[in-house]
């Protein structure tokens, strides 16, 4: 059978189409990931009297409400975590609950376990599901009604989204990361710049990214309004997956590798939108407002275009970004809570002391364990940071962590919305190294100006 040239997403789509009705396709879902927010969906299937069709393709994890310290547990966190265990147990769904060594933020822990595979369709009731596209999966966030629908049918009705390609050529300058690249793209095309599109990343700068960096970039793709982000899988992907507990092994891995090698867009495939980015133009980025598109290079100034946002943030138009005082710092989240993120921050912290409270919440128990083993956790503690338990923590104020009203927090998370880190909290998004720099100086600081320790000895060896 010959096809018109197709994009990678279109190929995955075609391989998962069950039926087409009234212009929509019913797609088969390979992995359905759940967290505490799934309670509405379980209520819905209970009301409809439906069982879970494929519990063995469904995995739960406690992350959003996992407290970063035992004393921050509240009635809400306990209730929500218990509800997840109860709902998953009732339907024989495997769930990584508190105490499980595999637990972590859903978009960190599931890839670590080898549940995220190229060529698959992955859904989760969480917008940052786009993260899994880093592996060449078509992955997207869904709402509670859709979660219920997938639980009951393992399928989802979808209209094919328009395709968009973002090509990043060149190389990222020293001191910049995938986080800066993502913020740079969002600053360029806006938070509505990719609305509803399936974004595919291409170009030399993308191929040069590690798996962790690809996850950071795909994660932030949702902040451009996209439905999904995808990086065509390559040797970097295949090596990363080798030996992961639930990834294919032996003869099955050989078959998988054969299938995965075909996962690229055809020459001549068409995109509704194309954007070109020169990686050389990326600088360490800092958000100054209440939307991820309110972003500037650390060398820039606060513009005068968003008076309401500036009022909320307590900033004056024209002020230099470098030097904005902060009262708190946070390193973690599904964007930047991986081992390599912590390593980049530790290189700044080593031999220094924090000037403001810094909370570190590793992206998963595995990341936390590894950081203890290599001594990375010790660097954070020696610098005076709090080394918290793994979870969504200060990325979202629903688990006992929050930034006080009016306080300014340098954060590695992905959203600087009003109130995201607590009512009245002011969030400045940046990379892990930039947050570490801000934490030791007490103000937004260009990390490129700070001498950093060489921690290459602690680098993660391939899995």
């Amino acid at each position, binding site marked *: 059978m010959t096809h018109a040239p197709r994009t990678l997403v279109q190929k995955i789509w075609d391989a998962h189409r069950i039926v087409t009705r009234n212009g929509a396709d019913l797609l088969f879902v390979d992995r359905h990931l759940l967290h505490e927010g799934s309670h509405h969906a379980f209520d819905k299937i209970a009301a409809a009297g439906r069982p879970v069709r494929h519990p063995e393709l469904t995995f739960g994890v406690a992350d959003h409400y996992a407290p970063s310290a035992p004393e921050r547990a509240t009635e809400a966190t306990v209730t929500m975590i218990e509800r997840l265990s109860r709902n998953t147990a009732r339907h024989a769904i495997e769930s990584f609950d508190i105490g499980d060594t595999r637990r972590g933020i859903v978009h960190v822990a599931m890839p670590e376990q080898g549940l995220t595979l190229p060529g698959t369709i992955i859904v989760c009731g969480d917008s940052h599901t786009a993260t899994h596209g880093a592996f060449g999966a078509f992955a997207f966030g869904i709402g509670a009604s859709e979660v219920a629908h997938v639980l009951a049918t393992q399928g989802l009705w979808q209209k094919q989204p328009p395709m968009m390609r973002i090509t990043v050529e060149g190389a990222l300058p020293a001191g910049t990361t995938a986080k800066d690249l993502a913020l740079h793209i969002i600053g360029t095309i806006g938070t*509505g710049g990719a609305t509803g599109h399936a974004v595919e990343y291409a170009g030399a700068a993308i191929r040069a990214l590690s798996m962790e960096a690809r996850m950071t970039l795909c994660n932030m793709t949702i902040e451009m309004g996209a439905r999904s982000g995808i990086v065509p899988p390559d040797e970097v992907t295949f090596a990363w997956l080798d030996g992961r507990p*639930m990834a294919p092994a032996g003869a*099955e891995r050989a078959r998988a590798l054969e299938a995965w090698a075909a996962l690229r867009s055809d020459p001549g495939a068409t995109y509704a939108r194309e954007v070109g980015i020169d990686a050389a133009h990326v600088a360490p980025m800092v958000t100054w407002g209440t939307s991820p598109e309110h972003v500037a290079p650390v060398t820039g100034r606060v513009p005068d275009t968003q008076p309401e946002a500036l009022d909320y943030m307590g900033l004056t138009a024209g002020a230099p970004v470098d030097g904005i005082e902060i009262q708190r710092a946070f390193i973690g989240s599904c964007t930047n809570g991986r081992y390599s993120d912590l390593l980049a921050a530790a290189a700044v912290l080593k031999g220094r002391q924090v000037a403001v409270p810094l909370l570190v919440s590793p992206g998963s128990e595995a990341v936390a364990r590894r950081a203890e083993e290599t001594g990375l956790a010790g660097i954070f503690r020696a610098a005076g940071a709090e080394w918290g338990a793994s979870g969504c923590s200060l990325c979202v104020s629903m688990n006992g962590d929050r930034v006080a009203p009016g306080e300014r927090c340098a954060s590695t998370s992905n959203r600087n919305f009003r109130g995201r880190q607590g009512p009245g909290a002011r969030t400045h998004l940046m990379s892990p190294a930039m947050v570490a720099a801000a934490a030791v100086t007490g103000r937004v600081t260009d990390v490129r100006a700070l001498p950093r320790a060489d921690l290459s000895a602690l680098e993660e060896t391939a899995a």
Partner: protein
Amino acid sequence: MTPFTTVTGPGAALPRDNVDTDQLIPARFMKRSRTEGYGDQLLHDLRFDPEGRPRPDFPLNRLPAPPALLVAGANFGCGSSREAAVYALWDHGIRTVVASGFADIFRNNAARNGLLTVALPEAERATLCAWLEAHPGAETHVDLEAQRIEAERLAPIAFDIDPQVKRRLLLGLDELSETLEEEESIARFEAAYLAATPWALPRTTAR
């Protein structure tokens, strides 16, 4: 799902872009069950000050009655996938949201809960928004079958809608029961797919 045919009721303007889901329903309220209702928490931190008093200058606090139609700016509903953002609008009495654009997941969630989202070209959106800003709570009338919005003394506004979404809204159709009619196709697909791609199963639970 409640069918949407025509809705008449007060209109309100919320003239801002990027009304995100954290504003629509702050995360700390999301542990509620659906039956407890989310209407009082809609836009909570914009409507109320830290002491819980209504902010007098916030548009929704200047209405004689809760609105049935809300007009906002660009990129409405961006942010998280929380369906509670739709529940909050619905429980507050809102049946139609007009904006110049919507976030993808929000729009999907709305359609599955009977909430009509109308994306209008900027000029028409701005006219309606300005009218409702000047006349908070003015009566509006939405006719889904005719794809038309009317507001007192404004020319009727026609809108586009995905035919599938329209059909489901008009009939109040539940998607799940429609899918269950596809049982045979699903079973046939699954058997073929899982045989062809055994590696796609999680290893420890592979059958």
